[in-house]
C-alpha cells in the first residue's frame, strides 16, 4: 500500500474533516496535538497529514507534494489550480456575497470593491457587465466600507454576525461554498485504488 499525503487546512475545517475521516473508518487518534505541528504521521493507515493555510492547500496538491487535500470551494474558485475535484464533503458551509453600508449604491465613476478574493470578485462583476476596481486585502475586510476605502466588499458569509456587528448588510449572493476533496492528477492515476477507496468511504459519510 502506498503512502498517502493529505493536505489539510488548519483550524475549523480541519476538525470537521478529521471527524469525517474517523467516521469513514480510518484508524486515527482521537485527539491530535496540532497546535504547532505542521505534519502528522499516521503509520497504521500509511497516511501523512500536512497542515497548511486553507488558501495554500490547492497549491500543495497541484504540485503533487500532497496527493489529496481538503479545500473550500471559495479557495478553489479563487486559485483555479489544476486539481481534480472529487467529492463535495458538504461541511464548513457558507457562501460568498457582496456587502456594504446600508442604503448605498455603487460609486458611478469608479466603483471600488475590497476583497480577499480578487478573482472571484472580478469574475462576478464582469459576468454582470459592471466595470469595477478591485482592491486586494488580507483580512478584516469589513473595515473597508466603514472607513471609505471601498463601496462594497466581497467575502465569505456564514452566519452574518460579523457583518451585523460592523453595521454592514449583505447585497448580492454570489455562490455557495463548502469543503471539497481534491486530488493531484498524477496521484489520482498512480494511487487510484487508495484514492477511490477513500472517496467511496467518505461519500457514505456526507450528510
Amino acid at each position: 500500500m502506498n503512502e498517502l499525503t493529505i493536505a489539510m487546512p488548519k483550524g475549523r475545517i480541519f476538525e470537521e474533516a478529521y471527524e469525517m475521516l474517523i467516521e469513514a473508518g480510518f484508524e486515527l487518534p482521537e485527539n491530535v496535538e496540532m497546535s504547532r505541528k505542521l505534519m502528522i504521521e499516521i503509520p497504521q493507515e500509511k497516511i501523512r497529514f500536512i497542515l497548511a493555510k486553507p488558501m495554500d492547500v490547492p497549491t500543495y496538491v497541484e504540485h503533487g507534494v500532497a496527493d489529496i487535500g481538503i479545500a473550500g470551494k471559495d479557495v478553489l474558485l479563487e486559485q483555479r489550480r489544476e486539481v481534480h475535484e472529487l467529492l463535495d464533503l458538504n461541511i464548513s458551509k457558507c457562501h460568498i456575497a457582496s456587502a456594504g453600508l446600508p442604503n448605498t449604491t455603487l460609486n458611478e465613476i469608479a466603483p471600488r470593491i475590497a476583497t480577499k478574493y480578487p478573482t472571484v470578485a472580478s469574475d462576478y462583476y464582469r459576468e454582470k457587465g459592471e466595470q469595477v476596481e478591485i482592491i486586494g486585502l488580507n483580512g478584516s475586510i469589513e473595515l473597508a466600507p466603514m472607513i471609505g476605502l471601498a463601496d462594497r466588499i466581497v467575502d465569505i458569509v456564514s452566519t452574518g454576525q460579523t457583518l451585523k456587528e460592523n453595521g454592514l448588510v449583505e447585497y448580492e449572493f454570489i455562490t455557495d461554498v463548502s469543503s471539497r476533496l481534491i486530488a493531484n492528477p498524477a496521484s489520482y492515476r498512480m494511487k487510484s485504488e487508495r484514492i477511490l477507496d477513500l472517496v467511496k468511504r467518505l461519500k457514505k459519510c456526507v450528510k
Partner: protein
Amino acid sequence: MSPIRKFEKPLGMRDTFPKIFAKKEVIRQTGMEFLRLRGFDFIQTPTLEYYDTVGKASAIVDSSLFKLVDSQGNTLVLRPDMTTPIARVATSKLLKEKIPLRLAYFANVFRAQQLEGGRPAEFEQMGIEIIGDSSVYADAEAILTAIRLLKTLGIEDFKITIGNAGILEAIIKKNVQDQQQFEELHNLLVQKNIVGFEEAVISYNLAIEKEQTLLSFVEDATEMKSIREIAKYLYEKDAFIYMEQLASILEIADATSYIAFDFTLASHMNYYTGMLFEVFATGSGFPIGNGGRYDGLLDEFGIEVGAIGFGFRIDHLLEVIPQQSETNDEVLVLFVAPQLAEALETAEKLRAQGKRTTLQSMEGLDNLAAFEKHFAEIVRIGQGGNVHE
C-alpha cells in the same frame, strides 16, 4: 517594478547547467536510438511559424502563444507544439513521398509566461507522429512505443490512462439538450471536476433517465473492471468495437499492467478526435506526456488522412528518471610550457583510452588546489618525469 538585475532572464526561461544538460543528452540519445530502431525518422521544423497557419491550427489557447511581427507585418508565433508544424510539413510534402509516415522529434516549444514557478515558458518535448494510418494498429503502435520508450529510459512505475474523445462526445451529446451544455460538461471533465459535473447535470433539469445516465456513466467510467461496462451507454457501437480491439491488441502485446481505461478522460486539445491518452509516473505531480488521434488537424491542412502521436515533456521526464550514480573519472593533465609536446601526447593517449581528459597549463591557473578538486586523476608533466596521482 524593481529594476532588472544582471543575472536575470525573462520570466519562465531556464538555463540548462552542465549536469542537467548531460542528463537531457542521455534521454535524447537513448530516445533517438530507440525510435530510429522502431522505424521513426527524426525531423526539425523552424522555431517561428505564421500565426495564421500553425498558430491558429494549434490546440494551444491564443493567450498562451508568444507572438511577434516580421518585417512584412505578418504575425509570427514561437511554435507552441510540434504536432501542428509536423502536420503542416507532412501534408504539404512528406505524405507525397511515403504513406504512412513515422516521424519523430526532439524540440523545444514555447508557452506564454506564467507568474508562478514550476511552469517554464520554454521546454523540450520528444515525441512521434504516425500520419496516414487510420487503423487501430496505429493507435496500438503509438501506445506501445510510449511504453517501450519509458522502459528503455529506465522508468518502470508509470501508468497510461486511455480514453476516447469520440465516445465521450457521443455519450454526453446523447443526453444533453444543446451544444452549450455539452461544452460545459466537457470542460468540467477536462478539469476532472466531478462535483461540478454532477451539479451541472442536476441543474439542467434533464429527463430523469438522461440525468441518471450521465451520473452513473461518470461513476462507472472511473471504476471500470472491463471496458465492456461502458457499452450500455452507447447506441453507435463502432467506436466501442474499435476500443475493444485496441484493448485486445494491448493484451496480446503484454501491456495491460501499464494501462487503464477511463472514458471520462477529456483533453483541452480540441483536435483530438478518437483515442487519447495521458501518461503519469511516480515522481512527478504533472503528466509526463500525452497523445492521441487527431485526424481533424490534418483536415485543416487540406488532407483527409488519419494521424496519431504523442509527446513527452523532457522536464518532467527528468523528475521521474532513475538517478544514475555519478562516477567521476575525469583526468587532468597539468603541464608547464617546456613540456607542451609531451603533454599533448599524454592527453591524446588518455583520450584514445576513452578517458575524459582536460589539458591545462600551470601558467593559466591561479588556484591550483581548487581546480584539481574537480578531477579524479591528475597527471603532472614535470621535469622530473610524469607524476600520476
